[in-house]
């Protein structure tokens, strides 16, 4: 019978689908869900890897809340860095894209030049900047001195070390460019034309057309930027390893130390969970914020 045949076809399709999904599902259980649950369990234990984990209740979380100044220092470092580096990426990157969207000649040349720093490996960035920012003989301080400005000690000064990291991150601001350009080029020209007919000047056209139409991408850059800055590791590990003192002790650096140098895997797991919760809260808050500030064209799924 026809229906019976089609039913068996559907059954076969379902079977094939689950066969095809098997690797993903296994991977999800083994490498994501399982570890997530296990690290939640570990966060309630003391575990030095050498002997079995010992249940310690809320000890780790209590230590995080009150007893661990280093943790709060690492959060402070990460938050300050985020609060400066992310807006720089969002705004300067957008401004660069706006410049390139002015029908410039040789667009692909400029785009390549602006984007290039973003593909340079973090380690090379770290080496180049720790060389250029040497306090006495570095290129940047020598140049500053040449125009009569005292150069800061950058990586050697607890008050300036984060500025050095922000400089490194700002250098790669072009990484946002491809996304922004594709958004700007996606704005329908009719909207500009209509706005011109209404007598809007360039600034009003930007405020009323360009900005709202590209706001989803601005939001995306903002959110992925925040998630990225909370996970800075390589540049900090290679340049200062957290110093001077703990002035550049990024969160992940401290997590790495806790787990792999101090062998406190239980506490490190609790730190990982805190990171997860922070990122989750940032994401949810931003999504909520985006509902009122971001314009989604045809926003009905």
């Amino acid at each position, binding site marked *: 019978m026809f229906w019976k045949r089609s039913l068996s076809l*559907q059954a076969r*399709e*379902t079977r*094939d*689908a689950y066969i*095809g*999904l098997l*690797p*993903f599902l*296994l*991977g999800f259980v083994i*490498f*994501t869900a399982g570890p*997530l649950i296990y*690290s939640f369990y*570990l966060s309630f234990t003391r575990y030095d*890897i050498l002997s079995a984990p010992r249940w310690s209740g809320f000890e780790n979380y209590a230590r995080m809340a009150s007893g661990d100044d280093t943790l709060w220092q690492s959060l402070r470092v990460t938050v300050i860095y985020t609060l400066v580096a992310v807006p720089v990426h969002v705004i300067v990157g957008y401004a660069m894209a706006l*410049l390139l*969207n*002015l*029908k*410039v*000649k040789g*667009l*692909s040349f400029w785009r*390549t030049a*602006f*984007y*290039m720093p973003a*593909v*340079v*490996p973090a*380690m*090379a960035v770290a080496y*180049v900047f720790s*060389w*250029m920012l*040497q306090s006495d*003989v*570095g*290129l940047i301080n*020598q140049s500053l001195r040449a125009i009569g400005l005292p150069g800061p000690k950058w990586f050697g000064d607890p008050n300036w070390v984060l500025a050095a990291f922000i400089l490194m991150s700002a*250098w790669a601001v*072009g990484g946002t460019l*491809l996304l922004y350009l*594709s958004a700007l*080029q996606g704005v329908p020209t009719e909207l500009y034309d209509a706005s011109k007919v209404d007598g809007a000047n360039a600034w009003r056209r930007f405020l009323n057309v360009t900005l709202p139409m590209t706001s*989803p991408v601005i939001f*995306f850059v903002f959110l992925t930027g925040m998630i990225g800055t909370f*996970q800075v*590791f*390589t540049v900090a*590990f290679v340049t200062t390893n957290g110093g001077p003192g703990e002035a550049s002790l990024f969160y992940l650096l401290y997590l790495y130390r806790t787990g792999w140098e101090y062998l406190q895997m239980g506490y*490190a797991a609790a730190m*990982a*969970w805190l*990171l*997860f919760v922070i*990122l*989750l809260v940032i994401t949810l808050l931003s999504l909520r914020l985006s509902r009122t500030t971001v314009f989604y064209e045809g926003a009905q799924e």
Partner: protein
Amino acid sequence: MSDSGSAPSGGALVQPPPQMGGAWMRRQQTGQRLLGRALLYLALAVLTLILVAPLVWMVSASFKPEGYVFEYPPRLIAEQIQWWNYVEAWNQFPFWRSLLNTMTIVVGVEAGRLLSASLTAYVFARLRFPGRNALFLLVLSTMMIPYHVVLIPQYLLFRNLGWLDSFNPLIVPHFFGGGAFFIFLLRQFFMTIPRDYDDAARIDGAGTFAILWRILLPMSKPALATVAIFTFMSEWNDFLAPLIYLNSQEKYTLAIAIRQWQQVAVWGAGAYVPPTWNAIMAMATVLTIPPVVLFFFTQRYFIQGVVISGIKG
């Protein structure tokens, strides 16, 4: 193709707006525009200089004799070009060995990710089955989980499997799904391929997975290239995972080996000395060249991947 956005440029210069009349007025407007354009290109040029300068200095320093790296005012090319910095550096640690290690990991991850992500993407793009939407949401939700949250338990898992100090922890997980972003990217691409091709193949007797292998994959080279390029970039730059999993020098990836070499003083000139900045810049150059060259030649795949990543946002 890569230049989809470069609208006919300079058009505004050639045709001043015809309204308002009066040659003088027109000339003044054109003058203002020219000035605006000149300022625009000046800004672009200055930005380019600032952004490219660190890379130029890196390469330039890597060819300078020792002692010339900090001279001021700096010279782009020193009196003598010194290739020796490179040779000196890679004689001081197992350079070729660690390059081979990095490439082994790259190839392994590429294989795992291309196979596994395209299989998963194909299921979601083409097959109908109960639970499809929920499972696809599950795939997307894994993007929300930062790798570092599962790092510790994964480390313990691989430790129990006896996989520490091997490439397995860095390669094997990629055979199981290949990562949500890449699944999403490939699914989007598969959905643009008309189903007529599938139907024709099915009439010829091809099974579900033969259609993927023989029809869709050969038609998806641009999307697969995007996945392959992004994978190369992330694996080449990876640092924390190899740092945690690899302990012996003959297993180090290039990035880890360079870091190790740069930190530990080496025997040279009759004493233990740290590597010179010239040599460090030489190794930074070596690290930088593959991703930058790849980016130069594959920009359109980059743009494709980035645009797709933005759609999901």
